[in-house]
């Protein structure tokens, strides 16, 4: 078995460990009866943490073996960066766990990491050679520190989600109930995306097209999902596959739009099935699970994560980024979309820290802010990389 195979297997082990860990964490916080429940919870929580740490070590093993194999840190394409992001979220969770001994965080942190790793796995995991601008030791320093900062900030969203799961009454109609369910629905959509990709890949779906791009040149495109949206002036080259239903103008990447469409279809079907079987909203199902958590402590963990993560993020995503940009391009700042979105993330958390100073921005509001902050981080990871092309773009097509 070569190093790269070992690396892949370790990642799989980590993934399974996180799944198992989630179940144990669920068990640890569920018990509410007085029949020695505290002890049982403690025991389950300990097992859960051990499983999580085993998973993390496997994940770290994946990272190191791939690093050795490639000769540079595996953070240079979408698959690698996203996988590493998932790993750092687990690391940040373990760190915060040892500070606060808050078992309940695992119930949200692990599923978030699982979704992120699952999402990463949908991207090609080949070992790509490095273009000249990435051949610098700053690649490791900048990307890894930025990812660590984002991961610690993500823990504040984990605490925020947990806070909201408990604080929002699933029986009373409210705006926050609606939005919380929307957040959970988004999580299901990610599952939908993974499922759609796996299924169409499994049946080996392929449809080849030629189309006219924005520069009026003819280009080729391979769809791996049934084309709902067609590229500008497309011609279908493959027999016996679906013709696109709608043609898009050249500026829109109809292939990606098609992927988003199928993610919505699969995700929504899963969501509807869950609703039909349980006859309850997801919020309503999760709400009773988290009754034991202490809201005050969660609020503090959320705030503290931002306090710990903010300097790390500043250092990695802004300071190191500027030093590297100065070295590679002779300018420390170039208003590249990814740079701008790192700045936006930074400004947002700066606003969060200042809002914590004024009255009435603790608790629920603060939890929502943490969730929005995480949404911005994900936007920077997904939309800016895949849609808004720039220097940092991993996929220009």
């Amino acid at each position, binding site marked *: 078995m070569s190093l790269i195979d070992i690396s892949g297997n370790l990642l799989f082990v980590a993934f399974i460990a996180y799944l198992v860990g989630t179940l144990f964490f669920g068990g640890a916080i569920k018990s509410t009866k007085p029949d020695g429940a505290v002890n049982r919870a403690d025991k389950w929580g300990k097992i859960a943490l051990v499983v999580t740490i085993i998973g993390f070590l496997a994940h770290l093993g994946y990272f190191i073996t791939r690093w050795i194999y490639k000769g540079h840190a595996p953070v240079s394409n979408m698959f690698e960066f996203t996988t590493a992001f998932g790993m750092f979220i687990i690391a940040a969770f373990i760190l915060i766990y040892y500070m606060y001994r808050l078992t309940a965080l695992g119930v949200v942190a692990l599923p978030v990491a699982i979704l992120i790793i699952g999402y990463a796995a949908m991207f090609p995991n*080949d070992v790509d050679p490095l273009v000249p601008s990435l051949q610098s030791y700053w690649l490791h320093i900048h990307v890894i520190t930025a990812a660590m900062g984002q991961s610690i900030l993500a823990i504040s969203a984990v605490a925020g989600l947990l806070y909201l799961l408990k604080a929002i009454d699933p029986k009373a109609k409210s705006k926050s109930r609606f939005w919380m369910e929307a957040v959970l629905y988004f999580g299901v959509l990610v599952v939908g995306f993974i499922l759609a990709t796996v299924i169409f890949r499994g049946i080996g779906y392929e449809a080849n097209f030629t189309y006219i791009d924005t520069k009026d040149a003819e280009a080729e495109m391979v769809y791996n999902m049934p084309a709902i949206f067609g590229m500008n002036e497309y011609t279908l080259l493959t027999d016996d596959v679906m013709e696109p239903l709608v043609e898009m*103008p050249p500026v829109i990447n109809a292939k990606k739009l098609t992927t988003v469409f199928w993610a919505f279809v699969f995700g929504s079907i899963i969501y509807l099935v869950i609703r039909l079987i349980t006859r309850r909203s997801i919020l309503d199902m999760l709400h009773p699970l988290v009754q034991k958590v202490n809201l005050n402590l969660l609020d503090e963990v959320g705030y503290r994560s931002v306090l710990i993560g903010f*300097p790390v993020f500043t250092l990695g995503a802004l300071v190191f980024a500027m030093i590297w940009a100065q070295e590679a391009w002779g300018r420390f700042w170039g208003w590249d979309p990814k740079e701008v979105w790192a700045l*936006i993330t930074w400004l947002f958390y700066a606003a969060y820290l200042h809002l914590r*100073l004024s009255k009435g921005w603790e608790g629920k509001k603060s939890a929502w802010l943490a969730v929005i902050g995480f949404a911005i981080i994900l936007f920077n990871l997904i939309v800016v990389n895949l849609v808004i092309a720039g220097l940092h773009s991993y996929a220009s097509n």
Partner: protein
Amino acid sequence: MEKIICVCGHENPAGTKLCGKCGRPLTEEAKTSKIVDMKYDGAAIRSKTRNKSIIDKIWNFFSSVRVGITLIIINLIAASIGTIFPQEFYISVSTEPEKAAYYEKTYGSLGKLYYELGLSNVYSSWWFQVLVGLLAISIIVASIDRGIPLHKSLKNQRVKRHESFMKRQRIIAEGAVTEGDSANTMNLVEEKMKKLRYKVRRDGNALLAERGRFARYGPYINHVGLIVFLTAVMLRLVPGFYVDESMWIREGEMRAVPGMEGYFIENEKFILETHDNQQTENQELQGVNVVAKNYQTDVKLYKQADNSIPGQADNLELVKEYSVRVNHPLQHDGYAFYQMDFRLNEIKAMNFELTNKETGASLGAVSIDLANPQDEYVINDQTKVELMGYYPDFSGFENGEPQTATPTPNNPAFIFKMVTPDKPEGEISFVAIQQTIEPNGDNTHKMAFNSVETRNMSGLTVHKDSTIPMLAIGGAIFMIGVVIGSYWHHRRLWVEQLEDGTIRLAAHTNKNWFGIKKDLDAVTAFAHLPTYIDQSEDDQDEKEKEGDSTL
């Protein structure tokens, strides 16, 4: 100015919430609330005390945290708008009409609107810079407004605080010691708090243990760093501080460096290397066949000797030989050369054979150096070729005259006059790539194309940024400040032993209540103190209204 005189006799400036000496609440609001507002330790801040003149009003506006947050959010939104479509400097057309056409063609009417509103160049627009400027003013004003009173009140802290101050802290305890002799309690508290690395001061029957006070200065330090950084950015507008020039230089060529007086640079060789890997799935997705591995220009940097005439390329001293690569700029004397662009296989010279069309016999070879074309090329006494016209980038005829689109030799064309022993009066021929026109009918001779010599061209940028040290200092101050403010916390514990030996205790921290409670648990167990309560946990609604709001 009006003063508030506390019951204890201490004079406080108007606007003070908690007496600077004993801590008694002075305002109605402070008197009725269950937990006092410990922001700036109750000191009067300028914006809360004066509101008369227009300057006061402007000051008050910018000192408000609410205004500051609003400005952060507005800046955030403005910055995000600039990422909807690519900014102008990322598209490869140069003139205004071309840009307008580009946005409309590529992004439709939305793109046109984007361009017309100036959003395609957001970051250098006057209003974006004004927004950043307003944020900077807000940072300065708010920091001065709050930082100075906070510093004063932290510096002049008394050990003994009034009952009404203690009882309105978030964490309080009152009662008899749970075990042992109460006479020794204060000593035990002092011993334990010192072990926990607190600074302990005692005044009669009162004790103040304090730790991490410097953490309170973190936000002010990082604001100073930000201002230094923003000032450095503005300094770049001052001439001489900032040079940003780009230059194209061909292999074998030497050119004066723009923006760097007295220096010449020579391009010895440009190298492009590619990875020889199998195409990966990602490459396939991106439509990339090969991935570049290295862009490199081997250069020699020369400096004119002293007292030479500016621009004169003789009398040069070699300064440095270097291979400029991406991530590895050539640095000298505050200037840096970066590898930015390249053009491969530009035509350097074209070789022709003067040939007799019928017999195919060659009368001699002519090599034309496109960078330095000669008027005539003499082969022997009777044979020569006159170059009557040279069009480096031939683009067609206009009124019978050949035209050139650019001075770059992308598509060279020539008008030759061939003087031979057979035709001493000369024959005229227009020669372009794959095209020959003989204006005076049938020629006997032709200029037969033989070969072409090419060379590569490298695009370098020349940078000098004298603001870099200042930017670095600003950045470093900011990081230090933000780390101090985030990773250290200001914790205080006030303990007083009353006449009857019972203990009254209050504690405050600016951040991380979980942490201070651990310390309190330790000291409570060690000195047998009464159990403390967290007043904010009594009533969740109350807490949300009150908030704990400290810097």
